[in-house]
């Protein structure tokens, strides 16, 4: 047990699983780095270094650098999984999914159903998500709704280093295809992370903070912003409960509904634009199954209906901030005082 970063947790999870199971391979662009070059091979380990050191430990047969061809990467992972391997395929930035979405949503996600349950596709697609790096419209998306809407996929969004390791190990051992979304802005965040392998199960939310007046649901990088907002609200005795579902598919509906049953108020935070978002998905679920306990409108805090802007001034206003979460919370907590 020791403090590790989110980045180290990811790297450790993959390394330990590769040591445990020879069927686990890593495939993607520059997951090793340096192939064909005049210098060192394997020094890079992915543009953010998540796979660092794996090439040297496991070699070119299991840490496979590819041409820039995401459809072929995803297809190769699909075919390898169908035939007995457990590939971990990387999409460097989730934004690139547009060039390989067919392999993910029409192939990988659907094999099992189309083939009447006779196929198994155990693979993990890792991708980095989120804005904040001033990387503009094509390198700053989160796209969690894009994957959550697809039957056959499981979607994981770790919000801290502990979950990052445990959820990734679960993803690798899972017999279904899993989309594992790494928040770029969390790579440096630290937590106590056990040295030994462990799993964090899917579909089990983490109650990050207990509270009585209001429920805030947030994923990935948005969890810390929710915590900051909750801390502000606490200063005035307003107590917010924070639910981090950890996985958007499967979704731990019960934990969310239990929390809303207690608080009667809900704010959902999502790092995506508003339409057909995860925020809408969860708000709608509660407006159906949790309606009886609702005391106020369900607020969604999302990005605006625009692409991600480049300029820091714009990008800072683009992402849901602690201040916007707090304001959304206040706007429905006020209601507490109104006559019903």
């Amino acid at each position: 047990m020791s403090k590790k970063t989110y980045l180290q947790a990811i790297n450790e999870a993959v390394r330990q699983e590769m040591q445990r199971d020879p069927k686990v391979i890593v495939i993607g662009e520059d997951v090793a780095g340096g192939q064909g070059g005049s210098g060192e091979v394997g020094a890079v380990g992915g543009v953010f270094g998540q796979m660092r050191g794996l090439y040297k430990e496991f070699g070119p047969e299991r840490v496979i650098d590819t041409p820039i061809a995401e459809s072929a990467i995803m297809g190769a992972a699909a075919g390898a999984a169908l035939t007995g391997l457990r590939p971990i395929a990387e999409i460097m930035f989730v934004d690139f999914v547009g060039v390989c979405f067919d392999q993910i949503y029409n192939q990988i996600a659907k094999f099992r159903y189309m083939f009447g349950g006779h196929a198994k596709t155990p693979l993990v697609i890792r991708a980095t998500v989120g804005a904040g790096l001033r990387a503009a419209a094509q390198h700053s998306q989160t796209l969690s709704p894009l994957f959550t809407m697809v039957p056959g996929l499981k979607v994981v969004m770790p919000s801290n280093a502990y979950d990052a390791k445990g959820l990734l190990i679960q993803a690798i051992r899972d017999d279904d295809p899993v989309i594992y979304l790494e928040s770029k802005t969390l790579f440096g965040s630290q937590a106590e992370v056990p040295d030994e392998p462990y799993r964090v199960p899917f579909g089990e939310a983490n109650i990050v903070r207990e509270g009585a007046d209001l429920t805030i649901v947030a994923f990935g990088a948005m969890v810390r912003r929710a915590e900051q907002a909750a801390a502000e609200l606490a200063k005035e005795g307003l107590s917010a409960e924070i639910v981090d579902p950890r996985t958007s598919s499967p979704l731990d509906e019960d934990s969310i509904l239990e929390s809303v049953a207690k608080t009667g108020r809900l704010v959902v935070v999502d790092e995506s634009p508003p339409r057909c978002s995860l925020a809408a998905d969860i708000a709608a679920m509660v407006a159906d199954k949790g309606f009886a306990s609702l005391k106020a409108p369900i607020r969604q805090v999302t990005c605006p209906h625009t692409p991600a802007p480049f300029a820091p001034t714009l990008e800072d206003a683009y992402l849901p901030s602690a201040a916007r979460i707090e304001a959304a919370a206040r706007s429905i907590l006020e209601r507490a005082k109104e006559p019903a």
Partner: protein
Amino acid sequence: MQLSREDLKRAYERMFLIRTFEERVVKEFSAGAIPGFAHVYLGQEASGVGVCFDLTDEDYIGSTHRGHGHCIAKGVEVEGMMLEIMAKAGGLCGGKGGSMHIADLKKGMLGANAIVGGAPPIAVGAALTQKLNKTGKVAVAFTGDGASNQGTVFEALNMAMVLQAPVIFAFENNGYGEFTAQSYACGGANISDRVKGFGLPCEVVDGTDFFAVHDAMRRALEHARGGQGPYALEIRCKRFQGHFVGDPQGYRSPEELAEARTADPIPRFRHAVTEAGLLADADFDAIETAVEARVEAAAQAALAAPMPDPARDLTTDVYVRYG
């Protein structure tokens, strides 16, 4: 090279089984017994059978929307196929896949694919498994001439070459992609030259001649199993029917259609083999009688079988375990 009498019988049995099965599919589709779309393999039998003839159940194939022939060539049972194509619960995919998604992984058949260009990248992955596990097995990617223009196919060719994966790309050039001629849709002189640009060896083969396809495939297998990387075949064949059952085909002249039907791989095979005195007409007749009886029985059984029950089957098989 010389095939044994048993092999010759097996080759003819496979081709004739495809022919008989597909003709029955056309009949049942027209009669309304087959839901959805049906793309039949009539005229291309020598291609599928020639390519799959020396493959084992541990070798894999990725197929297309026109996959019935590939299934049969790979040894998939027509009984389960007919049930599936008629959307019956007992079908290979429990009636959930149908003609465009028919699959049989136990036989190394990774599925028909209703996305043009969907299968080649998947075949590369199946080949990577063979390479990593050193099985000496291969993966075959069946791809049409129309599909040969899809970016995913070029990516797969390049990826297979770069990773030296034991993939054999079987480009079945039947002259048309839907209602558009290959001569219009494929830039460059022909498919094989485009393929060679990626560094793969690529042979152009007469797809109406089983022996030509089989010989080329033997070279391909030697290459791929020998660890020399991917190999490709451009197999020129004829599409006897329309793109789908019911296609009026106004875009093909009566002359061209008539001419296409003269290049029939099945009588050609029978003629060549009888001429060479390797099999007698009686041998062929016996095979045909048996095949016809088998397809008849498969069709009757499928017609009589029940469709899946929504209450029991609609939401199963999405995940191995959800949550």
